[in-house]
């Protein structure tokens, strides 16, 4: 129906104030006039505490590119929560997310998701994607950082005989490592793909303080376009190694971050937060993102990645100052759009929502 705007408009004369989709949803839950939804088609266990959830999205979803992520809305005890997950399925296929139990929301997804469940979705986004032209690639991943890279490998390796991909993947133990079987099979089957699995329980972390480890694992790493995804420390050490190589052009290493390091507040800030249009007022401390403050106060806050990168959560500041939880910088002037997911109150704050 959404594909035929004229018909939809005509039918809505009979359904107002509801939309035609509100009635179609009686028959198929992915129909919604207001929000994108998907139905879970398959849930595959990966390790003891992780699963891959395949889903069929409703209209409005745009096909993902390998390496992108999407926001997934899931209900826990009746309350909608949004989290961002990398899509692990190959481009051109129905999307899938691979989730590891790391917190309250991911735990519910891992333990309770079953085929037929409805997930709430936002269209895929992200710039951690394959290069436009074929190039030799080096993938550096650690832990669940393999997820977006897995999508790239699944997209590229079986389809492109001219691909040349080296993956260095670091995990704690073989049992805790995602996709080990599939990676080994792909490496056996396709000569253009090489895998180096590194288990930290045996060898400790990969040493990026010098180039020695990298030289040993992948001799021609300097000639490759590199992609890295994993925990913050892993990414920082890889980043500094690349920065030290004067000969390498800037941008040789592409990075995907999963989390943001938030600075602790001075302890004496925070303040009264006013949600102007919602007519709510709440006392907030200096370490809680304004997004959470608003959600807890029952304000329908726009939200996105919750890590300060996607700008879905921008709200106009009417008055007051906020502290950027990543940098500790205090800023804010009337009318400025602030990222509520990484900003805390620095004194009284008035937001236009």
């Amino acid at each position, binding site marked *: 129906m959404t594909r035929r705007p004229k018909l939809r408009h005509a039918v809505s*004369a009979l359904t107002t*104030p509801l939309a035609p989709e509100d009635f179609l949803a009686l028959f198929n839950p992915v129909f919604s006039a207001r929000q994108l939804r998907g139905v879970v088609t398959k849930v595959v266990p990966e390790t003891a505490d992780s699963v891959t959830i395949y889903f069929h999205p409703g209209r409005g979803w745009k096909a993902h590119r390998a390496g992108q992520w999407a926001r997934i809305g899931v*209900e826990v005890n009746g309350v909608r929560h949004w989290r961002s997950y990398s899509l692990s399925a190959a481009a051109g296929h129905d999307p899938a997310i691979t989730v590891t139990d790391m917190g309250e929301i991911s735990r519910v997804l891992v333990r309770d998701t079953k085929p037929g469940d409805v997930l709430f979705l936002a269209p895929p986004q992200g710039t951690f994607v394959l290069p436009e032209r074929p190039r030799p690639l080096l993938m550096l991943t650690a832990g669940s950082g393999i997820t977006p890279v897995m999508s790239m490998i699944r997209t590229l390796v079986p389809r492109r005989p001219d691909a040349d991909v080296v993956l260095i993947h670091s995990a704690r133990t073989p049992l805790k490592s995602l996709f080990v079987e599939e990676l080994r099979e792909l490496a056996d089957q396709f000569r253009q793909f090489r895998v180096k699995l590194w288990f930290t329980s045996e060898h400790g972390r990969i040493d990026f303080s010098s180039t020695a480890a990298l030289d040993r694992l992948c001799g021609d790493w300097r000639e490759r376009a590199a992609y890295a995804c994993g925990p913050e420390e892993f990414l920082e050490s890889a980043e500094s190694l690349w920065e030290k190589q004067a000969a390498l052009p800037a941008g040789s290493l592409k990075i995907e971050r999963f989390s943001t390091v938030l600075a602790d507040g001075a302890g004496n800030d925070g303040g009264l937060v006013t949600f102007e249009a919602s007519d709510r007022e709440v006392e907030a401390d200096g370490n809680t993102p304004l997004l959470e403050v608003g959600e807890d106060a*029952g304000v329908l806050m726009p939200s996105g990645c919750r890590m300060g990168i996607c700008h879905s959560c921008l709200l106009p500041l009417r008055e007051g100052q906020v502290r950027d939880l990543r940098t500790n910088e205090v800023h804010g002037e009337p009318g400025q759009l602030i990222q509520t997911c990484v900003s805390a109150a620095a004194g009284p704050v008035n937001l236009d929502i």
Partner: protein
Amino acid sequence: MTNVAEHVSEDTAVEKAAPRRRAGALAETGHPVVRPPAAAHLSDEQVAELSRELDAIRDEVLGRRGQHDADYIRRVIKAQRALEFGGRAALLFGRNKVAWVAGTTMLSFAKILENMELGHNILHGQWDWMRDPDIHSTTWDWDFVTPTRSWQHTHNDLHHRWTNVVGKDRDVGYNLLRMDDDQPWKPFNLGNPVYNAVLAPLFEWGIALYDLEIPEYKEGLKSKEAMTRDLQALGRKAAKQFSKDYLATPLVAMLSGSGRQALIGTLTANAVRNVWAHAVIFCGHFPAGTDTFTEEMVDGETRGDWYVRQMIGSANISGSKFMHLMTGNLSHQIEHHLFPDLPSNRYHEIAPKVREICDRYGLPYTTGPLLKQVGSAWAKVFRLALPDRTKPAT
């Protein structure tokens, strides 16, 4: 959106992160200039203690609120949409008598459910905690002529804040009826029963007109810009509502030669819903036993006094589970007025506790079967059509 119970019950310094309404937070201690007669026997300490007991009831419900409640409201939404869909579809073939009766019945129930258990309660923010943009006080639109923003202003804010305060809560008579002895009698009031009888089947249009706040505009309390904005919003909404039931549905029904029957069906369904909503709403604050208040009774009012006013100014309706659902749980008017933003499916659980509190503090807890309460409200409509017999009218 926000409502009064929130600032009343959560305005403590202890609950640091609790949201509250901004303006006019009520005092913790003290007392109004005059306490209402029904509560005159209570000391300041007793009122404060009563307030703490009611807060505890609210906190206990908040602690249990979750999946069970989310499933409930989704079930009602689904049932309502199925009834609406089935009813309207059947009316398209209204030439057939069975289809007409089935269609009109289903559509009447759909409209009642939509206004009472869904619209009214969702617009109070009872389900905002789910963070579902489809079931939220800021996004919901209802099958009722008055625009949601206007309703939230006159109902959620003015009526629920100033419940039964003559001169402040214009729901006491809706600027049309004389519903309290303290409203001075005018010859116009002789028509009280006639106005009310005409209002009932046209209730949604009456409410739409009332929400425009024309007296406030005339008194200069409402700006011209606000009036223009509200008129435009009402115009748009009314056009859509009118054309849905009285143009689009009969037009499509003409394909089966049922245009006229479909029109009679939608007119009937709207009238049934209007008469029902009017009856239920008149049972809320007008039956015998409910008190009205003067402005000096709210001057200096504490949180506890606010709670007291909500309880002695409201009346419940006793009856079956089905009746409670059809009234949108406004049959638990007392509980609703204490906690307007608690999910409606929880009111019946807390009703015995609220009643016990009223008994213990010697406060009236007015309740009765539907017909008795409707009769009592109508008796008042008739009685107040005439000037007061014991004292001069002015």
